[in-house]
């Protein structure tokens, strides 16, 4: 038990120092109010981000208000490799949808995400830019012309 506790403490220190996260800790990390002015300012601008309106009306139903998804069904989009890596792949997921088993953060998700091609290029660019700069993601914006290029 002592050893286990020591390891736990060590991990806790590591996580706190690196701002790291795992699924068990997710909730407390996301809901904890951050004291730094920079983050508060960012949160305020995110609230007025044009992509938030799209997210709330189209994406939130499955991916949840905090981007944590639904276990076994809808993958989380917080601190997500899918979100932060290849913008082309990300745009294609929105335009063409995605279904079948996918592994995210060590968990299997199996459901269907319908295509969202009915959204405008601007709406898709907005929502992806919003998601890529929220929920602990830290990637650059996506432009409407990036979306147009991938429309068939």
């Amino acid at each position: 038990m002592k050893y286990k506790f020591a390891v736990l403490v060590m991990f806790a220190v590591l996580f706190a120092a690196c701002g790291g996260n795992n699924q068990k800790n997710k909730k407390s990390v996301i809901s904890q109010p951050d004291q730094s002015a920079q983050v508060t300012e960012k949160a305020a601008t995110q609230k007025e981000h044009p992509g938030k309106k799209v997210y709330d009306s189209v994406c939130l139903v499955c991916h949840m208000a905090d981007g944590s998804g639904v276990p076994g069904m809808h993958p989380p989009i917080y601190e997500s490799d899918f979100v932060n890596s290849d913008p082309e792949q990300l745009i294609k997921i929105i335009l063409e949808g995605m279904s079948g088993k996918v592994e995210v953060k060590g968990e299997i998700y199996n459901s269907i995400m319908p295509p969202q091609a009915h959204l405008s290029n601007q709406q898709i660019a907005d929502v992806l830019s919003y998601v890529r700069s929220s929920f602990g993601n830290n990637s650059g914006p996506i432009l409407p012309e990036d979306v147009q290029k991938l429309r068939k």
Partner: protein
Amino acid sequence: MKNLFPAILISFLIFSCGQQEHKATQVPDPDNGGLTLPEGFSALVVADEIGNGRHITVNDNGDIYVSLRQQADNKGIVCLRDTAGDGKADIVEYTGEHTGTGIKLHKGYLYFGADTAIVRYPITPGELVPGNEWQMIARGFPNERQHEAKPMAFDGKGNMYVNVGAPSNACMEQSRTKGSPGMDPCPLLENSGGTWKFKDDVLNQEQMIDGVRYVTGIRNGMANFWNTAVDELYVVQHGRDQLDQFFPELYDAEDNAELPAEELFLATEGSDFGWPYCYYDQLKKKKVLGPEYGGDGEIQGRCETKSDPIMAFPGHLAPNDLLFYTGDMFPERYKNGAFIAFHGSWNRAPEPQKGYFVVFIPFDGSLPSGDWEIFADGFAGTENILSTRDAEHRPCGLAQGPDGALYVVDSIDGKVWKIMYSS
């Protein structure tokens, strides 16, 4: 392994005392494993962190089997045994190459609902872990990416009933896409959206050749149960999602959080419960035409002739398992009544999520004799659940033990509770 000797010793002692001695020596956990229960009931945690538990079944000797959605230790079945007699599993073994939901002991085999087939693993009397040589019982089910669970029930007369969920929300031409019309007739009903009847002991049956469609119009029946008191099949259904998202002119977010009902069906042969054309509005107490088929939330149309549920619950609570209680441990009013494990919602957002509990419905004969009531709560570990992941545990499977206790398994960590009663 180092604890094997005392375990063997204890198991000898237990065998010489007889199984009934378990009951007297089992002490509930001081906090009942985090559950809130009616007066006189208590609980202990049998096992924890065994995987993404789905359904659960308990053998006559107390051995427990849990199906997994996702492999743990590269296996899909968890086997639990309590050798100390304190109710807590001290042997945990993993076996089986399939993952899935349905799991029931029948005729000396462990039947398993892999998502595209029903298989069975042989059980050797006295041995915990089933043999590896599984047999194919029924196959040919559609390869589904949603609602793929395959629960099964046995009628004791040589038949097995398998729910086949429809891989769809409301049979729209383009799945879950705003503005896409509902297909009419819905072709998915040919091989899904209902319950199929098979022989319980014949190998290699094909759904569309050997299976008989027993009831239809069930979107996603995550559990079924043969109630031996009245010799009838019962099924619980997950109702459709996203009414407000696809039809904002007819429904708002609050409507969607409550509608449509989750339903308990008395599944008499030949019944049609109306999916995808209809849904049940528990506030108006009637089946109404779905908006994909021209409905406006009021008109009934063809739904007037569809079978109603015998009990309706608020929307999206996700009834994931069903059990009729036949034990002697619980008070008389529980006898032949139904327990339902609700997995808890996701499609109530942006309204708070709810329904992470086990309910009880008293029965008189084949029909409920009273309203549903929350029996076990506290699984989520918190009251305020905005996102599904805020719930610490989600009840998913139910089983009755040989002593009459009720077992509940959770899908997040595979926590297993044993709920007991003492007067």
